[in-house]
């Protein structure tokens, strides 16, 4: 097995823990998080590996991983960790650091969905599902592909299905104190 030198950067975890605490240093590598993770089949690094890399300060590997974006925040890992490591919350922390520091996400569509979602509520205060998906497609440049693959037909069929079942709103629900929502989301990236 190939061995490479690694220079730990302990300040990375210190900064993370100051925003937590996430208790990452408590991990004793039992892998209970990884074994219970329902989305691990699509991850490039297993949740326990993310924790290990965090302890060793391997910022680059973590922030560029698919794993942080595939994590569905189901909280199974945090719930079951025998040492109280808040793994799912740490995944969120890494997502936010990646977005705020401009690291290109390994899964731009997943990151873009979160951004489109916050953009959707920024002006009205409530989610308007009718505009969320089109805004996300535009933001992540999917329209052309959707036309090519015929996927747009599936999506439209679904939207019409919801409409027919009176489950698709046609106008956004606006709140009165929209300025407060704008203020809360001012620093969002």
């Amino acid at each position: 097995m190939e061995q490479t030198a690694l220079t730990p950067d302990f300040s990375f975890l210190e900064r993370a823990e100051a925003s937590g605490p996430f208790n990452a240093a408590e991990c004793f590598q039992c892998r209970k998080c990884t074994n219970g993770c329902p989305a691990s089949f699509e991850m490039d690094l297993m949740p326990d590996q993310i924790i290990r890399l965090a302890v060793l300060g391997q910022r680059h590997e973590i922030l560029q991983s698919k794993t942080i974006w595939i994590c569905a925040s189901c909280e199974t890992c945090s719930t079951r960790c025998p040492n109280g490591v808040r793994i799912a919350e740490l995944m969120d922390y890494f997502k936010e650091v990646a977005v705020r520091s401009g690291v290109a996400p390994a899964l731009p569509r997943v990151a873009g969905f979160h951004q489109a979602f916050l953009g959707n509520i920024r002006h009205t205060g409530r989610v308007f599902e009718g505009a969320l998906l089109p805004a996300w497609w535009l933001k992540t440049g999917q329209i052309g592909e959707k036309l090519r693959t015929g996927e747009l037909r599936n999506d439209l069929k679904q939207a019409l299905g919801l409409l027919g079942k009176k489950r698709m709103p046609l106008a956004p629900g606006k709140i009165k104190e929209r300025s407060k929502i704008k203020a809360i989301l001012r620093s969002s990236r």
Partner: protein
Amino acid sequence: MRVTYYPGCSLEGTARDYADSIHGVCEAMGVELQEVPDWNCCGATAAHSIDHQASVDLPGRNLELAGEVGNSDMLVPCPLCFNRLKSAVHEIEKGSEGFRTRLGLFTPKIWDLANFFATDKMLEKIASSVKNPLDGLEVVSYYGCMASRPPSVTGEPNYENPQSIDRIVKTLGATGMDWAYKTECCGASLMVSRPDVGFKMVAKILDMAKRVGAQAIVVSCQMCQLNLDMYQERIEAETGKVFGLPIVYFTELIGIAAGLPGASDTLSRHFVDPVPTLRKYLGCAATRHPGEPGPDPGRPE
């Protein structure tokens, strides 16, 4: 009794059927819902993923408003909203700094809707309202993630094996079957942003429900409902398996068992039609779909 009510965005949109069902059942059970005035989106997965401050302050504003309403209890049907509201309380109460939220002296007790209906008092009300017991109906209860996990936030004691929906369906006369996927994740927004991943996660759940022999899956989460219901046909096409599993809200079952007027109206708004499974509990007046011809008066039965 009067309670504060935080519906959340999707109950005004893709889960309006759930909202209608909740209103019907609450009215029949003497639970008056007083909506939080001018409530806003809780920020959902998006906020807690990429903006921690907003993930506390968006629900925080709702908590401030809910405190002013003054009822001691607040019902929250959407488990993610429930979780984000509880998380915000948790974060503020531990004295974290840097948030705008200022909780007043009073914050109502925040209830996951299914847990509220599974209290002894509500179960008694439900039991006394049952007119059409759901005898012979075998279902699995599916709770998803957010009403249970993490227990340090939700306060749920049975986080690996929740019981609320099971207790409700049992009170209605149905059988809640044992199965291992009660709290398995449905993929949530991955269903949209990475359908390939979401489809696999939901297929596993549908497959297990089918294998234990359930006639339907009973849910309390509108996101789980949408993911298991709307995409079921496409997942069947991709996996080559046939599930045909109706995904019904526990409030719909309460309405049907209690014989509430209009209780079956929401059933036609599902993608997998629950009527064939539930027909015998609906009574004759309630089984008609919109568009389906009514009983023919000229022809004797």
